């Protein structure tokens, strides 16, 4: 089958999709966007977290066909998504998410595949690097999408709020302490307007 949907602001079309393919598979293997990860492919680890019409989902549990006509944001588009959200936050009523119309009005700029440069990083991405929250990095894309979405809803989270919001994302390397540090750091920088 053919599937049409928008990924990081760009219309995408995937052909010859087998009906059993997940959104994760189509992103990774057909659209050249392997940033969303395949740690469990059973909806338990959160490494494949993307936003589907703004809602964080495990893309391994979404059939590709379900994404037809919808908006997907992956880690590859996170920086640009955050940049436009920050730009538009003046018109929006606080940090209450990005409307579908707004989401449709943007697209991610390309990043250099070797260095990542050119993307510019979102506050939460930069905070993960600065706080030492990245080790092997396999959980990182999913955590970034989930953490960014939480900070959009709740710009001043308590520690318990952070733990609850990220409880669907497994990390095996860090013991989560540096991830907590990173999210606190991103929240603090966001509130300071850094």
């Amino acid at each position, binding site marked *: 089958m053919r599937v049409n949907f928008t990924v990081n602001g760009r219309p995408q079309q995937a052909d010859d999709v087998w009906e059993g393919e997940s959104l994760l598979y189509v992103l990774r293997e057909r659209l050249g966007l392997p*940033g969303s*990860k395949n740690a469990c*492919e059973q909806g338990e*680890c959160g490494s494949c977290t993307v936003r589907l019409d703004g809602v964080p989902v495990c893309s391994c549990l979404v059939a590709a066909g379900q994404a037809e006509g919808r908006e997907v944001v992956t880690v590859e588009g996170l920086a640009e998504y955050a940049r436009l959200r920050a730009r538009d936050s003046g018109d929006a009523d606080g940090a209450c998410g990005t409307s579908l119309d707004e989401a449709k009005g943007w697209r991610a700029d390309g990043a250099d595949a070797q260095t990542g440069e050119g993307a510019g990083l979102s506050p939460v991405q930069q905070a993960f690097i600065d706080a030492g929250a990245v*080790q092997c990095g396999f959980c990182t894309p999913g955590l970034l999408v989930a953490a960014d979405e939480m900070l959009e809803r709740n710009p001043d989270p308590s520690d318990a709020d952070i*733990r609850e919001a990220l409880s669907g994302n497994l990390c095996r390397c*860090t*013991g989560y302490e*540096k*991830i907590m540090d990173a999210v606190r750091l991103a929240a603090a920088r966001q509130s300071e307007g850094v």
Partner: protein
Amino acid sequence: MPTNGVPTKITQGSGTKGGIGESTLRPDGTLKVTGEFAYSSDMWHEDMLWGQILRSTVAHAEIVSVDTAEALATPGVYAVMTYDDLPTEVKHYGLEIQDTPVLAHGKVRHHGEPVAIVAADHPETARRAAAKIKVEYRELPVITDEASATAPDAVLVHEHRDDHHVGHVPHPNIVHRQPIVRGDVAAARERADVVVEGEYTFGMQDQAFLGPESGLAVPEEDGGVHLYIATQWLHSDLRQIAPVLGLPEDKVRMTLAGVGGAFGGREDLSMQIHACLLALRTGKPVKIVYNRFESFFGHVHRHPAKLYYEHGATADGTLTHVKARIVLDGGAYASASPAVVGNASSLGVGPYAVDDVDIEAIALYTNNPPCGAMRGFGAVQACFAYEAQMDKLAARLGMDPVELRRRNAMEQGTLLPTGQPVDSPAPVAELLRRVKAMPLPPERQWESSEGADVRQLPGGLSNTTHGEGVVRGIGYAVGIKNVGFSEGFDDYSTARVRMEVVGGEPVATVHTAMAEVGQGGVTVHAQIARTELGVAQVTIHPADTRVGSAGSTSASRQTYVTGGAIRHACELVREKVLDLGRRKLGSYHPAWAHAELLLEGGKVVTDGGEVLADLVDVLGDEAVEVEEEWRHRPTEPFDLRTGQGNGHVQYSFAAHRAVVEVDTELGLVKVIELACAQDVGKALNPLSVVGQIQGGTTQGLGVAVMEEILVDPRTAKVRNPSFTDYLIPTILDTPTIPVDVLELADDHAPYGLRGVGEAPTLSSTPAVLAAIRAATGLELNRTPVRPEHLTGMS
């Protein structure tokens, strides 16, 4: 003054930013947060096929027949291979003992053993084709424990052993046996005022690295193959892969792809040979990616163990003796079992001074899943038991458990039960003191202005208590882990370091085969080069087999050994650069001939700080390059009868204090805090060091309260191969982990550093268990602890 003319090492690099001791950020950090970092499962090639493995559905059986006809006839299938299709006479592999079939021949020995492989143009086509392969099994009785393995009529897991351990083991279903005998336990027992015994069970833990086993094999025009792979040791893989393919090693090119964690689970081969076989057979690139279900069958696990301990002490708490028997279940293939036995036995009394010791450790061959390396490697299981024993002894003596440990703590100079002196700082008592001195989390920490926050209570969001029936407990533990490969292994690494001017700036390039698995080796490699060469710009070359072996990313050894190799190569490069400077510019200043010279901030300076030249002018168009192997001091094997011998290189010590709250009615545990103090010798990158300690601590927490691969004792089949049923700690399960880092230099090691990664995984588990015992008053002789163990339902 150094005698070899090398500039004083203490001062070299101290004036250059981004060197050792700073928390520089990961060079791969940006790629990892943007999704651009290419892990092994992200590899893609035009025209590539997907490989799939068919695995046995039973644990122990003769293979009567394999019929691949229907699978081969499936549209989209390019190849189906079984044992009969292997191209050479080499059909087995293994880390130490080559007992593992590439594909099963005549027999399967564990649930999930590879029987056939398929290549197809879509992963689902490959899966469906594999399911069409008809394998007829004739089931055999299963060996699942020591009793069934050593029974007089026991079926032999391996009928024709010819490995170098078979001559000294008491039964062919025992892989390796290592006794450690020192002093006279019988006489010492006479001096004991109290003797405590215990029998302990350690469950089978999975590494649960998040990046699944995966890679891409690309056939090359010269008949060779290029494998992009996630592994812990490229050259060890190469040594095992090439003979099976019938290729010389230089025709099997290996490049490290991004590795999504390892923790020991990537020491053994997984899909490497299978992908290469299919690529060479089809002439097309072949990608294999396990899903999580397959990953549980695709790598070895931590050995489950039964441990029998007897500790004696005089009334003042001084240990008289330790007697122990440690039975590790190695499963169907040897993997790293012999070395795990060596660790469990030689470190079996823990970080304590005891003169009279009688330890026996064995690893079994069974039909359970193969077990091998996992973070802590034999020392973890022993630590769980000896620390439980120390608490038991303290209770019997009416002593404070920390005081009992302090009284028996080893120090620099203490002899291990192997007779080897611990010849570097061993601050065991100090680590315990530090971890005990940390402030405790407040009582009833779950209370807030809005009432009880269930997220901070046992049961969490299940909302099972608001504090009713919740009891706090505090527990302590300390452990000792060896660093580096022991028992006489030639444990070396290789580094190639190049210095040249690029874009008007001096740049160092560091090329090693070190597997970066997330630990941050690439970060410290760049720091070492900055410190030793006084440059700002360091390029880390991708790891591959075009440079010599770096050894394994395991045994907490890479910063020590590959770090040591890089420092050594940098020293040689520095000497060559200074020689170049003397030749080119020596006549301009007498200091070139007479002063101690350093490289700092891209310049040649005297130890007095006078600038002699810019490195750009010294180097000009020339590149200086060195590739050298580097070794730590040698070790020796343990005597097979007495276990005596200087078997270890270095030790790493950590202590934990666990604070838990237990819902005693429901048997639910919430770990509130897990504080750690660890001696790291020298923290080359403090941020990364703390990250290692917190991560290791959390894996120890996991096996204390939730992680266990369950194997049906009747069928030897794995019952929970998924993250739905095998639970690892989430961010809600994990407490705050305050870390106190001690830096007492080991003079034998580069910069005085100690391997960091494993020690925190040891003492975390027994500290949590001790805290749960303190909260509940229960004996709790197994890990992980489950609700039924706390409520009397089991």
